[in-house]
């Protein structure tokens, strides 16, 4: 109860946004394609928030976030398909399963690799990401359903505006509360100076692992929503570039800034998808020439994120 009372303002704001979007969708003002993109934005924001907890707040560099997103997606889709729980009533359970699976893998892999720091941790997580990609590519050897490199087909479409929106808002509120809690304080402390944190008695290994597991849990939940939105999964959806996508959103939003991640998610996905609509068909190829140029320009203009002018 206290949880809801304390975040009254945010919940109200979220409800207003939801009502506006619902109205827009129901009246048929926007096309189904845009609807899907808007839902996708919420999913991306959720996953990026997970990375923000790991990197932005706790300072643990990860280049393999998409692997956990993929683990969540595959787990929940596999569970829904093989157990026959393909209805909206069991959807929360499969979403949770996706998140928990990602968290479990993060726990197992996190114990050894979180001893590494900075770029070395980045390379180790990048390596883990590619390992997971190889696993997805060969997954048809384990179960035909998973599809391997042909892709996982025939997932029921269960994600709609309601599920994506409310799951994301709820978890963002939880994240905000976690960040302002004791644990969040420890996380931010570790980011500033790990040695000093250890010297004042913070169990840094445990706290880093906790942030990593929680961040990956969010990615897993987002992946589960993603799987039931697009109804088709392919290993290439969860490769290195997807991890970079999340990283770009975190950096553009400003490290350790939840609101920034939300704005940046909208701006980044909106820009990429917007170009697809705005550009005429004959120069659509140029889309991926513009996007990197814009990215480079943004980094030069605001190296500390879109919302921060100077070193914050």
């Amino acid at each position: 109860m206290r949880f809801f009372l304390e975040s009254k303002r945010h919940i109200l704001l979220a409800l207003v946004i939801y009502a506006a979007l619902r109205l827009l969708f129901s009246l048929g003002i926007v096309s189904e394609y845009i609807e899907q993109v808007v839902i996708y934005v919420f999913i991306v924001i959720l996953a990026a928030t997970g990375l923000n907890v790991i990197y932005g707040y706790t300072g643990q560099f990860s280049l393999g976030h998409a692997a956990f997103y993929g683990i969540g997606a595959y787990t929940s889709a596999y569970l829904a398909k093989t157990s026959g729980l393909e209805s909206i009533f069991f959807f929360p359970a499969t979403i949770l399963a996706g998140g928990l699976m990602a968290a479990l893998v993060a726990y197992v892999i996190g114990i050894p690799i979180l001893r590494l720091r900075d770029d070395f941790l980045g390379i180790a997580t990048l390596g883990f990401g590619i390992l997971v990609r190889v696993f997805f590519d060969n997954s048809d050897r384990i179960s035909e359903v998973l599809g391997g490199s042909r892709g996982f087909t025939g997932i029921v479409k269960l994600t709609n505006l309601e599920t994506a929106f409310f799951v994301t808002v709820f978890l963002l509120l939880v994240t905000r509360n976690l960040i302002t809690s004791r644990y969040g304080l420890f996380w931010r402390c570790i980011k500033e100076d790990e040695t000093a944190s250890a010297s004042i008695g913070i169990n840094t290994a445990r706290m880093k692992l906790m942030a990593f597991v929680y961040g990956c849990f969010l990615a897993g939940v987002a992946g589960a929503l993603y799987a039931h939105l697009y109804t088709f999964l392919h290993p290439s959806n969860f490769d290195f570039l997807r991890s970079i996508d999340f990283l770009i959103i975190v950096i553009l939003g400003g490290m350790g800034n939840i609101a920034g991640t939300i704005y940046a998610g909208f701006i980044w996905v909106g820009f990429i998808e917007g170009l697809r609509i705005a550009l005429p068909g004959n120069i659509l190829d140029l889309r991926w020439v513009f996007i990197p140029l814009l990215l480079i320009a943004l980094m030069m203009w605001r190296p500390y994120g879109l919302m921060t002018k100077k070193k914050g």
Partner: protein
Amino acid sequence: MEQASYILSQVINGLQLGAVYALIALGYTMVYGILRLINFAHGDIFMLGAFIAYFLLSRFGMPIYLVFLATMAVTALAGYLMEKIAYKPLRNAPKISLLITAVGVSLFLEYFCSLKAVFTPDYIAFPRPFEVETYNFSLGGLEFSFTNIQVLIFAITFSALVLLYLLIYRTKQGKAMRAVSYDRETAALMGINIDNTVSLTFMVGAALAGMGGILYAMAYPQINVFMGIMPGIKSFIAAVLGGIGIIHGAVIGGLIVGTSEVIVSAFLSSTYRDGVIFIILLIVLLVKPSGIFGKRIDKV
């Protein structure tokens, strides 16, 4: 005995691939040493090298030694421009912005080159400048063979390593590089021109990657604008394996990565080959985070 011969021939093939990785890894390790930047666009310079060589060979029919020189000059120029335009303005920005910029440069090079008006996104057959010849040897029942391309790759990688050693440890410029990588601010105070030193590092690294691109295309004669992504990542892994910033570490790391990749493809399945390299990386990082030849450091 037949089994042993087969293993040996696979190891030779692996070393051939590893030698190319080593050439790319040298550039990675130099740039990382001097700027602490994982230059993701380095793999695309490698791709650029293969394409430039393709045009020089197929359109102009240049002799092979000129192709090497011209390609290395163009890729060195590309490396120079990349550093001046994209990385230099961010030298005092957070490292992560620089990394994102490097990914941006990499994507730009890939997709710009894949435009129909540039190199097209298709696979293109690379014309070999000379016929492949195979030399067979037999040593106490153990049979193995070399191709002339393999000999060329080993010779070039080895001479590149020697020349790089001479550059870094026997010249004034090399001393400047080592100084900048050790402590940039103090090096600047001692009168070393940081900008020139960084530019030189990028140019040397890019020239080596361009050379790697030609050799790779000769060994596996099919080129594509996205061919640099995986070799790029694997070469960086190789540099980390050997100990980042250490020249001979990059070469040994490259050979390890190439050999294990080919061995796994030959004996398990080619779909597992990318996975195995990362398992090796994870093990090495956990046992010795600074890499095989890295000095023991407390903070990595």
